[in-house]
């Protein structure tokens, strides 16, 4: 994507046993201001595969000189965090996307209850300064394992006082989600960022108690799903087009001088549709119907990819 922003790693610090914080500074232009809850997608150049991971911005939204993110070291399946922890040094340059936000606080809420699990505290780091500025009623419930996570717990506890509650499962303190939800007044919105098990526990408790689903929010990322490289073969000419992990099929075709009509480049307009004669498709568009997707012979190359290593296109 062309609208990426080049940043330099200005500092790195360990904020919990398995969590590192990176401060990213603008190189060319100032950075965009952002809204609380926003995230960026960090692109990590690597020999074999480019990792793209989404991280919440935890700096003050009004600071356009630098962004801060925190990365938890995950097991090998998420190679990006290992890369961030082991390869990235102060002074390195990285590419990031502009901020996007699918986890904005609802400012008309009467009260905000934030539930953070481990590194899931990060989006709330940008909520809190704004909640304080707006004099909003809020609470932060922070669940972590002190042997691994728990970043920023001291400063949060100090800053928030009786709005701050913590639960350390390495010390056997746990959060009773049902009790917590049942105490909340009308007009409360609940925000969750943490493991799926936490999200599920809150959703179930809410349902049992009779809280509306529309007051429960969990973090979503607009990050592109990672893609694997594959080969597209053009049936009429036999030409083989390599599609790298970073490029869309449409971009790869264009780079090989094969032009496909297109408009939105985002899987909604239907212009770029192509016929597939061979190969499994990983459908990622909003345009084709479920039946068309199941039939497996049409693809929207601006967003969709091969599910396997090869696709044959009828062009």
């Amino acid at each position, binding site marked *: 994507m062309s*609208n990426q922003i080049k940043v330099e790693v200005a500092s790195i610090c360990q904020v919990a046993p398995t969590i590192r914080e990176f401060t990213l500074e603008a190189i060319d232009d100032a950075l965009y201001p952002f809204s609380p809850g926003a995230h960026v997608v960090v692109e990590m150049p690597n020999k074999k595969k480019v990792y793209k991971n989404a991280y919440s911005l935890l700096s003050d939204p*009004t600071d356009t000189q630098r962004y801060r993110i925190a990365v938890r070291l995950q097991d090998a399946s998420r190679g990006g965090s290992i890369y961030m922890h082991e390869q990235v040094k102060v002074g390195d340059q990285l590419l990031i996307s502009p901020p*996007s936000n*699918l986890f904005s606080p609802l400012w008309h809420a009467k009260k905000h209850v934030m539930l953070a699990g481990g590194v899931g505290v990060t989006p709330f780091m940008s909520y809190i300064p704004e909640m304080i500025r707006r004099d909003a009623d809020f609470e932060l419930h922070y669940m972590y394992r002190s042997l691994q996570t728990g970043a920023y717990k001291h400063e949060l506890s100090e800053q928030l006082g009786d709005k701050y509650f913590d639960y350390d499962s390495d010390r056997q303190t746990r959060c009773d989600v049902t009790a917590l939800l049942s105490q909340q007044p009308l007009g409360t919105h609940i925000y969750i960022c943490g493991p799926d098990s936490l999200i599920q526990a809150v959703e179930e408790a809410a349902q049992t108690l009779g809280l509306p689903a529309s007051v429960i929010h969990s973090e979503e990322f607009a990050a592109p799903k990672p893609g694997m490289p594959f080969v597209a073969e053009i049936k009429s000419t036999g030409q083989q087009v390599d599609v790298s992990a970073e490029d869309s099929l449409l971009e790869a075709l264009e780079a090989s001088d094969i032009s496909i009509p297109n408009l939105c*480049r985002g899987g909604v307009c239907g212009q770029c549709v192509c016929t597939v004669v061979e190969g499994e498709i990983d459908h990622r568009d*909003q345009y084709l119907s479920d039946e068309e997707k199941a039939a497996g012979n049409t693809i929207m190359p601006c967003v969709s990819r091969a599910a396997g290593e090869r696709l044959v296109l009828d062009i």
Partner: protein
Amino acid sequence: MRVAPKEVETFRDDFTYSNSPEAIKRFPFPFPEDEYRYSVNMEPHTPKGGEGSAYEHFLDIDEHYLSEMAERKLVLDEMPHRCLAMEHMELACWDMLERLMTSLAQDYSDYFKLTIEGDQWTWENKLLNIHDTFTFGDSSTLPQSPLEYIGCQVQGDFALLDQRDGDLFLDAGMITCPADWSLAFDAGMSFKEWHGPVPMAHNEGIFERALKYLTAMQVGSPIRRLNWTLTVNARMDTSPETYHEWGHERTSVTPENVGEKVYLRVEMQVMDRMPRSNALMFIIRTYLISLEDLATNPEWARRMHRTMKTLPAPLIEYKGLSRYHSMVVDYLAQFDPAN
């Protein structure tokens, strides 16, 4: 070369509005095919058409700038409530002011100048003789609300949509030249609600797809789409509020005057994500061209004949063309050799 703003012309009463040959040439003709159907016709708002084109810059300032600003003032003086911003949209209004000022100053440096020193901003608009210094984010330092202040200096109507729970809400806007919809009535509605009256498109899933795309839009990647209708006389303010004043003009079209009286009205709609508020800005930039002027381009005239001839009945009715649609088709037929 870009067309320079000319003297004020009118969009009401004596209707002195006219397009220069250059303005005709750069008109954003909306029909890519011989048949027109609703579709998710959205594309990245990137420059095309080269210097002077309506698509050259993020905002298009053209020869009608002074006329449109004068017309907007007439509308707002009479009906101040045509501009509204709910309380929670304050930050979005400042986002919008910043986006518009920075892009005007960058793309039209002969006309507009922005100087930023911390939160002290100085704005100069040489076309309207405006020169103000204010504190960014502090509405009390501006002569009007931020939305009204900047909105009255840029061609096009503006809406600011609040994004909540995967939907968009029409919570602020300045709508002085709508194609027949009322901000006062639609205020606060969701994407599907305010599109309620549009025929056909709901069933085809068009709004669902468009909404998914819009809610995922990122800062710095604006998109655009074109919409169109027909208007009798060069009237900018075809609002429901004033419909009782202009509705009768729809019966004034005759086979003799249709070419000069009926205008193709094109809206270049630009959507852009606002960084601080996460709101979506929606710009509706309206262009008007008489059929007579349009027909100076034979390709346009031929295409327009075909799109009008095959326009589905629900669209003819929804767009309010029933009384004179057939006269438009007959008039345009002379430019279509297939006829």
